[in-house]
């Protein structure tokens, strides 16, 4: 692995990690995942409450309590620079910690959206919350997996929960989306599983560190076979992160699913999937020379296809689906360059992406609540009907487009930089060109909101609920504030972007 700029301070004093709640010392190996445990239990509890209680308030309360408890547990969990508890199935290192926080953050905002969305019938919302929490557990475990079994289990946990969540609306499109998602996902994970079995057959090991050692010792025709196994495994992860050509489900599912779920799908599994992919690639590091050209090519193809097709969309959720594919392309840069700088950039951009994309979906939810429509046309003249909402949406879109001084720019800046740093000039140029393409469809929405006259003049009603306002406000504030003062964030992430296999 090439060493980037940050390599000089790879060893970080644990005390500094206290910034995000990493406390030095005092940890008992094997109990390092209380947060996951709390969330799992809480999730099941919320499911029960949701099934029994009237209305969704009790379930919502329980969800927030669970989330708070999980966060507290994560905050207070002892984390040495790296440990491998739970029979070596999971790995707690700064890198996974970052993703666990990302998952929690995603969950929190999605909960806000789900509770505010008028799409979801009140009767089933409780179950929805429960599933969201379980999905969250899956996300955290994906990022922590240190073993093929845990990787598979975590991915299935995420998949199964999301299949159900996608089909939550009682209408044909939702069911259709769920079916497509299910079939596509099951096939992908089946293929991945088969690849895992082959990998196991070739190396005789399941845990990532062992794999790394075993792969390093493989040569000849076996190496060729290893590559086939890796390709099969790639299918499952590529599906999760909507990497071309395993992206086909994305737009259909995003369009059919409830907006809040779409929001979650567009961020959570992408982050966790990237984390897992990163770790898997780390385990297969000896094969890197073979894998890297493919990864680079797919990175470019992914961002280009996502951005190109997004140009012609008329449904906002579908548009954001393609935008997600494009954004995943950018994120993959951080992976594909395979340097410390790249990993940092990946993390920074994930943080940015979390806020700006969830914020954008919050706006979509608000507009759908107000107009009942998810067509782009619903945004026509929005600036006069809901100025605050439009402003927030404009901020998110501009951030997605990578306009400074918003957080998205900082992330993209680092990603492009990591590409150049690794000498991948073509990749950087492709990403830059893509940014320009993407500008069109992002600004098109802004154009509709600000330049076009509204179809009706009265203010949007109902105006966004407090929960939605909170989601919007926090995302917008984070996008703007962290864009203006990214220093602490970068500082933090430069300490977290430490990938270790134990």
């Amino acid at each position, binding site marked *: 692995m090439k060493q980037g700029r940050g390599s000089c301070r790879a060893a970080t004093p644990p005390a500094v990690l206290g910034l995000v709640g990493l406390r030095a010392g005092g940890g008992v190996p094997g109990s390092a995942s209380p947060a996951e445990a709390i969330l799992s239990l809480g999730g099941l509890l919320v499911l029960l409450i949701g099934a029994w209680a009237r209305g969704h308030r009790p379930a919502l309360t329980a969800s927030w309590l669970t989330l708070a408890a999980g966060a507290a547990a994560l905050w207070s969990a002892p984390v040495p620079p790296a440990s491998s508890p739970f029979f070596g199935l999971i790995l707690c290192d700064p890198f996974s910690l970052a993703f666990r926080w990302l998952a929690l953050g995603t969950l929190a905002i999605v909960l806000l959206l789900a509770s505010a969305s008028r799409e979801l019938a009140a009767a089933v919302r409780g179950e929805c919350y429960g599933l969201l929490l379980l999905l969250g557990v899956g996300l955290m475990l994906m990022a922590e997996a240190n073993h093929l079994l845990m990787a598979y289990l975590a991915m299935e946990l995420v998949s199964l929960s999301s299949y159900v969540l996608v089909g939550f609306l009682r209408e044909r499109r939702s069911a259709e989306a769920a079916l497509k998602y299910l079939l596509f996902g099951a096939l992908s994970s089946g293929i991945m599983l088969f690849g895992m079995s082959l990998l196991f057959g070739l190396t005789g090991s399941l845990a990532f560190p062992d794999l790394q050692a075993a792969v390093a010792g493989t040569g000849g025709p076996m190496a060729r076979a290893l590559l086939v196994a890796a390709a099969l495994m790639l299918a499952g992860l590529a599906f999760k992160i909507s990497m071309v050509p395993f992206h086909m489900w994305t737009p259909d599912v995003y369009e059919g699913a409830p907006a809040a779920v779409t929001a979650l799908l567009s961020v959570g599994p992408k982050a966790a999937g990237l984390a897992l992919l990163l770790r898997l690639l780390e385990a297969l590091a000896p094969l890197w020379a073979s894998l890297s050209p493919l990864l680079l090519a797919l990175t470019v193809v992914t961002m280009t296809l996502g951005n190109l097709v997004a140009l012609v969309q008329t449904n906002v959720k579908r548009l954001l689906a393609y935008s997600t594919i494009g954004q995943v392309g950018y994120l993959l840069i951080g992976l594909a360059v395979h340097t410390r700088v790249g990993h940092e950039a990946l993390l920074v951009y994930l943080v940015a992406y979390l806020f700006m994309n969830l914020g954008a979906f919050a706006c979509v939810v608000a507009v759908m609540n107000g107009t009942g429509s998810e067509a782009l046309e619903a945004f026509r003249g929005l*600036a006069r009907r809901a100025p605050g909402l439009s402003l927030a949406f404009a901020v998110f879109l501009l951030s997605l487009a990578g306009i400074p001084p918003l957080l998205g720019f900082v992330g993209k*800046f680092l990603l492009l930089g990591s590409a150049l740093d690794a000498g991948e000039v073509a990749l950087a140029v492709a990403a830059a060109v893509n940014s320009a393409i993407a500008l069109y469809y992002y*600004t098109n929405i802004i154009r509709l909101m600000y330049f076009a006259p509204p179809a009706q003049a009265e203010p949007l009603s109902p105006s966004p609920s407090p929960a939605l306002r909170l989601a919007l406000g926090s995302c917008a504030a984070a996008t703007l504030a962290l864009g203006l003062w990214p220093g602490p964030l970068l500082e933090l992430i430069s300490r977290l972007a430490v990938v270790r296999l134990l």
Partner: protein
Amino acid sequence: MLLTWLLACPLIGMLVVLALPKTAVRAIRAAALLATGFALLLSLELLIAYQPAAAGMQFVERAPWIPPLRIFYHLGVDGISLPLVILTALLGFLACIASYSIAERHKEYFALYLLLEVGMLGTFLALDLFLFYIFWELVLVPMYFLIGIWGGGRREYSAFKFFVYTLAGSLAMLLAILALYFRAHTFDLLELAAAGRTFELGFQQLLFLGFFLGFAVKVPIFPFHTWLPDAHVDAPTPGSVLLAGVLLKMGGYGFFRIAYPICPAAAMGFGGAMACLGVINIVYGAFVAMAQTDFKRLVAYSSVSHMGFVLLGLASLTPEGLQGAMFQMVSHGVVTGAMFLLVGVLYDRTHTRELSAFGGLGARVPVYAGFLIFFSLASLGLPGLSGFIGEFLSLVGAFGVWRWQTVVSLLGIVAAAAYMLQVIQQVLLGPLNERWRELPDMTLREGLSLAPLLLVTLGLGVLPLALLEVQDGALQRLIAHVVGAR
């Protein structure tokens, strides 16, 4: 803290405007006017306190901003940026006066307007490349909205075109910035300039190309100029003024502050190409301007022509050439800004910009006619007015280095007379078009927004030394830096 206050003025103004209720139009306007006015005063204070003889940056402020990337909030001015800062503050104030004719969505307008001014000022003040880029892009968004919401004609199309062109150019620049950072590990422009001299030629050329694309779109350099006529034509009058007066200068300034100091060997290598592009700009812009039937479009193309002199002077790398290029930037900002104001005055009354729709207004609106003739003459480079100095110095500087390019560009001077007089002819001369029998002359407010520009144009034309002396030291050092790098 002077520079921070200078930036803070419009920023505070923007916050005040945002805090005011939508209906308090008068208060909003007053706040904007005050904010830009204070900025202008501060910039003049800057001019007074500036010491032309001292070397290096002045009024420097430096504080860590993003420590992990070694990015600093680093501001400062020297002889290259100071004139442009003052120009920006001046045009910002005058265009704010002209913004009184904005009829709707005042609050949004003035908030964006002030944000735009922050970006413009910041671009000229920043000494940190990252900070520079942030301000550079910050200019883009408000301008996009100004054109798209308050513009006329095909405003959405023009706004979009402006946005995409400029951003595409900026992305090339961004890549160059990144490549630079990962090579030199600093964003500090002064350190980069020192480090740049040590880069091998190939790398410098790549960097230069990236910066060139970014700046070329803004300047604009042929063939990246086609956003300009559309954006200028469809922008509201104050927007056009700032576009022509300040935004184009950002591109030229970029060459002075970034491309040339950081890639000196490449800059010298590309000198011939730059000179050729400059000549193409001059002649091509002048020819195309001649064929325009829309007043604003004509002025827009004349900008293309005039900015060619900046390139030509820049390419020469002689003291006269650089002085001329800088002078031309300031002069063009003032004169073209005024031209757009004048177009706006006419458009507000007649709602047309077709040159053939006018005729004989000279007798009907003598004050307006006087202003128009004055600025047209300044635009065509009449000696005694500021336009001449910039053109002449650029030509003198370039003549010894790029002989034929300079000679060909003289064609542009003749053509400039042709198209500017065409304007005067079609608008002011001939028999009065009966449609405008009742056309009122300029109001006091309009006169006030133009009079300072008139004085500056005349003053710079008669006493150019006032400006040239401010620039001299910094330009000498730039030449020494670039030429010494060989």
